[in-house]
């Protein structure tokens, strides 16, 4: 039964030579065993890895003194108190537009990076890349380099193999767990939370968040790896639409490399005076590639442009005494110039980079300006809805409002409250004994205070009048004021 079926599979009639790389979308995953490599780009990647992960894991422990009434954690998202702290910046929920601005900036910086140097984000900075790199390093440390790993995976299960695998997955899980653990530290006082976590006194939310992030880190960096980039991530698709002929791509110089052949064959061709390429078909560039790409086939979606194949190839070129740079960062424009025999040009300054840079400076400047000039007091007024106005027994007319006073400074402040716009109006604040025209209210550090105020006038107003009124609060110490507008309504 199975024989003819297997045959259909094995020898499709009239099927051309198919490379699995051409149909990646619905293929079962090929195992990829990236080989270790040394070189410039590898070194850059290590540095980026150490710096970014260092920041991620340790930033929650950085302290920042804000005074006695505020948390002293430099970066803190305080959900219960609805505050976001970032060093000298403190953001209230109604200022969430700063975060939107930050995201816009981040997107523009990504675009600029792409216009200048292609997928540097993917190759060096993306968390997916950084953590995968870390997990691969652990894998190499425990199970050995490419050859040993392939051999081990093909070999039957032995105690040795089992213990290696167990150790690897344990280490992966530990790193993943630490990753999740560091994440929750951004949401509460880090040293306290660490103590609570260790003594099982932290909230269920903390443990669940850690568990979820442990799971995702372990799966994405340990098992999914390049599949995240190829199948799941939107950036390669967007990047492909954004790029132009001046952006740098990791490129194999076809004209220099081909015709490829073994060292011996190439030497023979050269001796005969026939054209011979520099590529000795050693497959090193493919072996080191974390996504299993053969860069010699040209630009591919799977290639995250990490530059590791450049390192691998440069090492080979050094050994066979050929010039480096058979694989290199190169722009499409330069490739064309090279084909025409012209000198290469680097055009970093061009329309789109100028535009991105200008947008980044503009938006960044705007955000900075608003941040610096941001007022640290605020006032909002809401008119009573029922009843809209009240007639008192002496015939005077009253409207009631709820005022919300905001003090964004980290110390107590007193504000005098006053109203203008209604003839003969007096203002009284409910809950403090006063009937005078202005009243002083104290607001705690970094707090809001809601008070009910009554505006009463004995003057006769036109029937159905709706007068614009302005409430003002004025800091009794500095004289800084905030205002809010509303209406005074007559029957």
């Amino acid at each position, binding site marked *: 039964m199975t024989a003819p*079926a297997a045959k*259909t*599979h094995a020898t*499709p*009639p*009239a*099927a*051309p030579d*198919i490379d699995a790389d*051409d*149909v990646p*979308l*619905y*293929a*079962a*995953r090929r195992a990829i065993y990236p080989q270790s490599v040394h070189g410039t780009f590898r070194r850059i990647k290590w540095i980026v890895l150490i710096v970014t992960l260092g920041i991620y894991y340790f930033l929650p422990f950085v302290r920042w003194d804000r005074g006695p009434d505020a948390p002293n954690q430099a970066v803190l998202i305080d959900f219960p108190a609805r505050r976001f702290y970032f060093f000298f910046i403190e953001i209230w929920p109604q200022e969430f537009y700063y975060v939107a601005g930050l995201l816009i900036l981040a997107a523009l910086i990504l675009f600029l990076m792409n216009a200048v140097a292609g997928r540097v984000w993917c190759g060096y900075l993306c968390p997916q890349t950084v953590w995968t790199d870390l997990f691969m390093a652990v894998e190499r440390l425990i199970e050995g380099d490419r050859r040993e790993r392939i051999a081990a995976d093909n070999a039957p299960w032995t105690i040795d193999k089992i213990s290696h695998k167990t150790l690897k997955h344990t280490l992966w899980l530990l790193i993943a767990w630490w990753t999740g653990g560091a994440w929750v530290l951004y949401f509460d006082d880090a040293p306290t939370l660490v103590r609570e976590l260790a003594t099982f006194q932290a909230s269920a939310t903390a443990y669940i968040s850690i568990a979820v992030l442990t799971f995702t880190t372990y799966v994405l960096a340990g098992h*999914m790896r390049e*599949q995240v980039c190829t*199948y799941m991530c939107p950036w390669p698709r967007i990047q492909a639409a954004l790029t132009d002929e001046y952006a740098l791509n990791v490129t194999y110089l076809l004209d220099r490399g081909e015709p490829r052949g073994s060292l011996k064959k190439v030497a023979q061709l050269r001796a005969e005076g026939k054209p011979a390429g520099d590529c000795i078909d050693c497959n090193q560039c493919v072996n080191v590639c974390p996504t299993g790409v053969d860069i010699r086939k040209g630009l591919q979606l799977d290639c995250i442009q990490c530059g590791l194949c450049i390192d691998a190839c440069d090492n080979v070129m050094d050994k066979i005494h050929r010039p480096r740079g058979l694989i290199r960062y190169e722009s499409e424009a330069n490739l064309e110039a090279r084909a025409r025999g012209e000198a290469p040009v680097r055009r970093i300054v061009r329309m789109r980079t100028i535009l991105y840079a200008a947008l980044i400076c503009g938006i960044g400047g705007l955000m900075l300006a608003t941040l610096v000039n941001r007022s640290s007091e605020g006032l909002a007024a809401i008119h*009573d*809805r*029922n*009843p*809209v106005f*009240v*007639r*008192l*027994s*002496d*015939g005077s007319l*009253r409207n*009631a409002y709820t005022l919300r006073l905001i003090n964004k400074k980290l110390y107590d402040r007193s504000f005098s409250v006053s109203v203008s716009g209604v003839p003969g109006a007096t203002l009284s604040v*409910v*809950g*403090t004994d006063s009937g005078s025209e202005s009243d002083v209210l104290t607001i705690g550090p970094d707090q809001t*205070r*809601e008070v*009910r105020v*009554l505006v009463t006038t004995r003057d006769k107003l036109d029937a159905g009048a709706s007068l614009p009124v302005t409430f003002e609060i004025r800091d009794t110490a500095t004289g800084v004021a905030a205002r809010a507008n509303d209406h005074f309504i007559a029957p």
Partner: protein
Amino acid sequence: MSTAHESHDAHVDAASGTATTGHEWDGIRELNNPLPRWWLWTFYACIFWAVCYWIAFPAWPLVSNYTTGVLGWNSRAAVQGQLADLRALRATTSERLATASLQEIEKSPELLALARAEGRVAFADNCAPCHGAGGGGAKGFPNLNDDDWLWGGTLAQIQETLTHGIRSGDDLGHQGNMTPFGAVLSKAEISDAADFVRSLSGLVPADTPSVQKGAAVFKANCAVCHGEDAKGNQELGSKNLTDGIWLYGGDKATIVQTITNGRGGVMPAWGERLSPTTIKALTVYVHTLGGGQ
């Protein structure tokens, strides 16, 4: 799975070398590429999850019931649990509301905010149907924002009214009625008295003849409760008739109706239904609406 396409006409696509499903639509054939394996696992995991969910949680409707799930979770119990948590969370603050005096609550900005927040909710739940969402009142139900109080507008008086009600059947509640004068006075006398009452807040000129006559009627019949000066008496719940604020309406027909048939609106004794702390919060809330004395 891998043999699904083979039962049909096993056609192999020339361009990609991949077998097709054997189905053909106007010459277009569907390639039979396998799904990525992790995708399949995700799919199975979802099915597994769904089955576990059915077992653990309420899921399937039955004829007169539903499957309750082995965890015994239901949304009603969940809400009750959350409410209990909330009460526990608020225990310390409601404790302070319970022990502080009404004056202390109004003096402390923190307790005031607390009492007003609780009072606002209790008011919306219990009082708003008659007095309106913000205590603005309606015909027969006093506006609680003004400074005209039938039974007194101090904190203690408001608390007492709230606790025992008005004509509520509670022995400690306020009792007084507006007596019907339809059988005692003639229609003309009632009309004159109404004119007199309206003249007190300037709705009818004081020198109108009927007002003069009405004054005599008022003195003989009404002044007992409403006072010689018609300013009312909070002991009896008799209304101040001079301030231009009307509970049932200040037009002549309504006043005639009031005098003829009397009035006797009812307010429930909330002490029977609400906790003393809630009544305190309500008292402070009503007192701070603007008319408190």
